[in-house]
């Protein structure tokens, strides 16, 4: 099993969610995040004082999936989240040892 984590632009959430549903994935965890990469923040002006804001708001998506699906899912997320402009985010995956569905106690792929 794999845990896919994606950091995306907040307004692309609907597109990514639709892409995951089209793929047959029905579970998703979303959290608000902030960070910076090559986009390196933006400037804001308050009463004439210009501030460089380094951390940009992002969403972090987490999905657990089968090993077989991981490459296709990563591609689906990346293409759905892509605008082609700087700051589109990252997608990565790591191996997962155990997954338990809390309600039933099912383990492994049955719990995905």
């Amino acid at each position, binding site marked *: 099993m794999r845990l896919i984590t994606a950091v995306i632009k907040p307004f692309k959430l609907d597109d990514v969610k639709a892409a995951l549903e089209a793929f047959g994935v029905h579970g998703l965890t979303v959290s608000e995040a902030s960070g910076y990469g090559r986009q390196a923040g933006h400037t*804001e*002006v*308050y*009463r*004439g*004082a210009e501030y460089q*804001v380094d951390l940009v708001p992002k969403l972090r998506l987490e999905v657990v999936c089968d090993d077989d699906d991981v490459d296709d899912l990563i591609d689906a997320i990346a293409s759905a989240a892509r605008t082609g402009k700087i700051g589109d985010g990252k997608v990565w995956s790591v191996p997962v040892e155990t997954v338990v569905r809390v309600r039933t106690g099912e383990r492994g792929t049955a719990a995905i």
Partner: protein
Amino acid sequence: MLTGMPTSAAVNAGDTAWVLISAALVMLMIPGLALFYGGMVRVKSALNMLMMSVTCLAVVTVVWVLYGYSLAFGPDAGGVIGTLRDAGFAGIGTHTVTGSIPTLAFAAFQLMFAAITAALLSGSIADRAKFGSWIVFVIAWVTVVYFPVAHWVFDPSGWIAAHLHALDLAGGTVVEINSGASGLALAIVLGPRLGFKKDPMRPHSVPLVVLGAGLLWFGWFGFNAGSALASGGLASVAFINTQVAGAAGVLGWLGVERRRDKHATTLGAVSGAVAGLVGITPACGSVNPLGALVIGLLAGVAAAYAVGFKFRLGYDDSLDVAGVHGVGGLVGTVLIGVLATAAVTGHARGLLYGGGFDQLGRQSLAAAVVGAYAFGMSWLLAKGVDRFLGFRVSRDDELAGLDLLIHGETAYDIAGHTAGVGHRVGQPVPAAHGVASQSSAKIRP
């Protein structure tokens, strides 16, 4: 009336009603100012910013009843200050009359002015003042600075009103230049916030700032038109002038921003409104609506440029008390000398209406004296408080934020999941909903 005693013949019912309503309108400006300021600071000290205004309403009210009213409006001593004869409102009852209204209505109205002027100062020392020291400073400041200056200008026997004949209907000197110069002194004595000029000190909630500015604008009708102390033509011209100058201030500030910063900002719009309203405060009973347009516009433009000086000169007037109130008040007070028209004042004329430089000189002198007195005395008082009590919190406290350390509160719990976690201190650790955590509660000592 309720006691069945006859009301004095000199009391005018319409005037009394308008001044009482105006007093309530000005009272609303204080929570308005609290929100205006509170939204502009970072979240970690937002409540402290609100509290500095809210406590002024309480503290200044107590001082006002005990001796403040008497120092400001008691029997005159040399045009400089009132005597203590009226301390505790001694001898002032329902029949005592000031002008055409009961003295108690006048006293209630003027009380709100003292409270909001003290609250205005807090903007210059955001995020770093000891709360107890602030309260001590407020008591000392209203006593030594506000009450005398109010006497000079608002009491008919005060030297600025009676001898200098400078015009100031609603407090361009008493409230605006006074708070601006005093705030500047406070900012200098306390020194800049940690990270000033380096860290982004962004407003944590511009919507709160807009709400606060809206309440200020609304209350300003009472502040300015109520200062006529009567309901009639003077109140009406002050009312329309207030609206016109606030509007022009918005446009003036936004014009500067569009040109300088390439963005017309929300914070700039409401800051411009306040600057325009500040500008018209002294002049609302001296100019016509076209004059108010000019004053509001120029106050908005001047303040929009003035707020940048603190970064160049290195003093941290955090929320621009000097930049907005000091500069706006100066613009309005001095421009009376140019734009005052006899059609409104009844006698005095500005430069533009054939009055020559006479009124301009009087206005400038009043502005200079009040500014210098306020700056000097506030600097001394702040230094005194700093020496005996310490005026500034420790470095660690400032970095952590004042809300939790001073007030034991935090402004927001927007992420709802933190609300139900924890337990009330002094009560047993709550029995959890599930069996498993009940046992874990037993394990805790």
